């Protein structure tokens, strides 16, 4: 499997067939391996559209997204799918099955061996505090537990790049903290994380770099502290309000 070096987003625009205006307009930035990027913006800013284009769920109307390896080769197709992990906002698993059954199924689709799946499942469920419900049907779980299962499945194949679309939406404070702590561990192990959220303090604490978008356009981009200083704001929240309202 080729090692990822960089993700390059060049002038990406997206206009849905049924929409009158572009959801994304001329978005360009790059992500280096190991970085944690937070994509922030108000509702309808285009966060989910951008993350969907980045992980190949939808195609841009204009522009391109390229994943390049250390040897500067483009990574695409099945190779690309093997190195990315996606955790959508929705609960993307089978509620009628147990976490172990879900992990077995999704792990098999990555051609992982039974042994690899078992080791990875045990480790992920343990660190996420789900070992005690590993063999219980998910439809009996709380929202927080379901979010954790959603996350665990996205990590079953140890992806190099992890896309998280609102991974803590709708969960209680304890679950949120536990998910963020877990993500920090993943980040520290060298996984590139691209993440969308409404929780600004969470993003400020967790991300190396931020990409603020509003009405489909980038309004600010760079390391979190630098952005706050550059725009003479007290914190990320005031920066966010300043930039998105100004837009």
């Amino acid at each position, binding site marked *: 499997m080729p090692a990822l070096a960089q993700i390059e987003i060049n002038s990406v625009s997206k206009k849905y067939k049924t929409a009158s205006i572009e959801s994304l307009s001329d978005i360009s930035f790059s992500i280096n391996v190991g970085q944690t990027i937070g994509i922030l913006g108000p509702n309808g800013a285009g966060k989910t559209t951008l993350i969907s284009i980045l992980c190949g769920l939808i195609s841009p109307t204009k522009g391109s997204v390229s994943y390049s390896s250390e040897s500067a080769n483009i990574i695409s197709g099945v190779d690309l799918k093997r190195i990315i992990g996606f955790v959508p906002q929705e609960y993307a698993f089978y509620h009628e099955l147990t976490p172990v059954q879900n992990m077995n199924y999704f792990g098999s*689709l990555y051609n992982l061996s039974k042994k690899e799946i078992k080791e990875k499942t045990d480790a992920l469920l343990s660190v996420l505090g789900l070992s005690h419900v590993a063999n219980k049907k998910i439809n009996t779980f709380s929202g927080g537990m379901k979010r954790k299962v959603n996350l665990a499945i996205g990590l079953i194949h140890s992806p190099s790049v992890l896309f998280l679309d609102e991974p803590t939406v709708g969960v209680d404070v304890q679950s949120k903290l536990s998910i963020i702590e877990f993500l920090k561990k993943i980040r520290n192990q060298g996984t590139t994380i691209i993440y969308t959220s409404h929780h600004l303090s969470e993003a400020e604490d967790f991300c190396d770099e931020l990409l603020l978008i509003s009405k489909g356009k980038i309004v600010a981009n760079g390391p979190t502290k630098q952005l706050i200083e550059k725009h003479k704001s007290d914190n990320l929240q005031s920066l966010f309000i300043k930039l998105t309202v100004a837009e």
Partner: protein
Amino acid sequence: MKLMASIKKELLLLFSDKVGLSIMFLMPLLLVFIITIIQDSAYKMVNENKVSLIISNQDKGEQGVKLIQLLTESGLFEMHAQNQLQSHELKNYLLDENKLTALYIPENFSDKLKEKATQISETLTYELGLSEIEKSNTAIILPNLHFYHDPVLQENYSYSITNVIGSFLNIIENELMIESIYAEVGIEKSPNDFKEKIMSNKIVIDRIPAKNDEHMINPNSTQHNVPAWTIFAMFFMVVSLGSNIVKERVNGSFLRLKTMPTNYTHILSAKMIVYMVVAVLQFALIFSIGITVFPLINLPQLVLPSAFSAFIVMMLMCSMAAVSYAMMIGALSKTQEQSNGVGAVSIIIFAALGGIWVPTFVMPEYLQIISNFSPMHWCLEGFYILFLKGGSWSQLFPVIGFLFIFIAVCQITTYTKLKLEKLI
């Protein structure tokens, strides 16, 4: 490996829904039991039980009594005399007593019949030159017999009963005619043996089912209903499989699958295999109940056709048609509610058009043409060829041909829809 994993996942999902699973197997069993018992009782009612007939004979002559005698001797009716009742009272009595049929014979029944017979014989003898006096040709109006029946009695039953009464009336009229002709030519009494010869010279009609295999048993309620209702139940899997596909498409698991190194074709193939197995198991269960349990509850035993390989092919084609249709509904529907609603209603329409409830030959011509578009019509036709007619491969070709086209259309539609959604 991916296919095996998907098959395992589908099986786990299927077994996790115990209620849905039991409905898939219990519903057809119940349907087959109930419908076969009902039809078997109806068959026995017509063929083995006597129909209760209330008679009010107001006739002053002999012919009313004669008609009653003939009806009694036929063994088809259980006669109840209520001669004190007039026609309108007879109707009320029938309704009040919750009886099925009643016959009112009017006062001048014998007189008018005799009058008519005399007129015909006079005309005949004059025409033949046996008499020189031409008699009047004034039209004689015969009195009507009133046959009352409970409105719940199906029309075909009441037609059958009136036909039986009509044939006995013919006998009486013929007898009167013979007697009149004899009287007209001056013979006081017709020889009894001659009259007997004429009256009893009835041609027996043998009822022979047209089947290819002479060893095949005669059609009965089991041979009709077991294949028919198994097909109906099998197509009903559209509710389970259709909503399974929609659920996967509309919830997040579909999004996740799109980012994974797999293809939805694997997932669809796994669904197809699992539900084909379910359909075959439905067949196996219902048919084995027809063979083993039906005789224990006094229902005719199901007899499998001698062309066993053709039977297996038909079973697989029907299963595949049901699964393909369910997949198409699942692919085309946007919500589970849509899939369940459209799926269930379309299956009921297919069943009605396909002859599951009433045979297609009794339908108006335009409906018979439309019924050709129901896959259930062809599935049923295939099984009837095998189960009732003892048919062969060559007779099955049109059936298999249509089912093949139906399966291809469903599969192509499913593929195209999922391709448009960039799932495949």
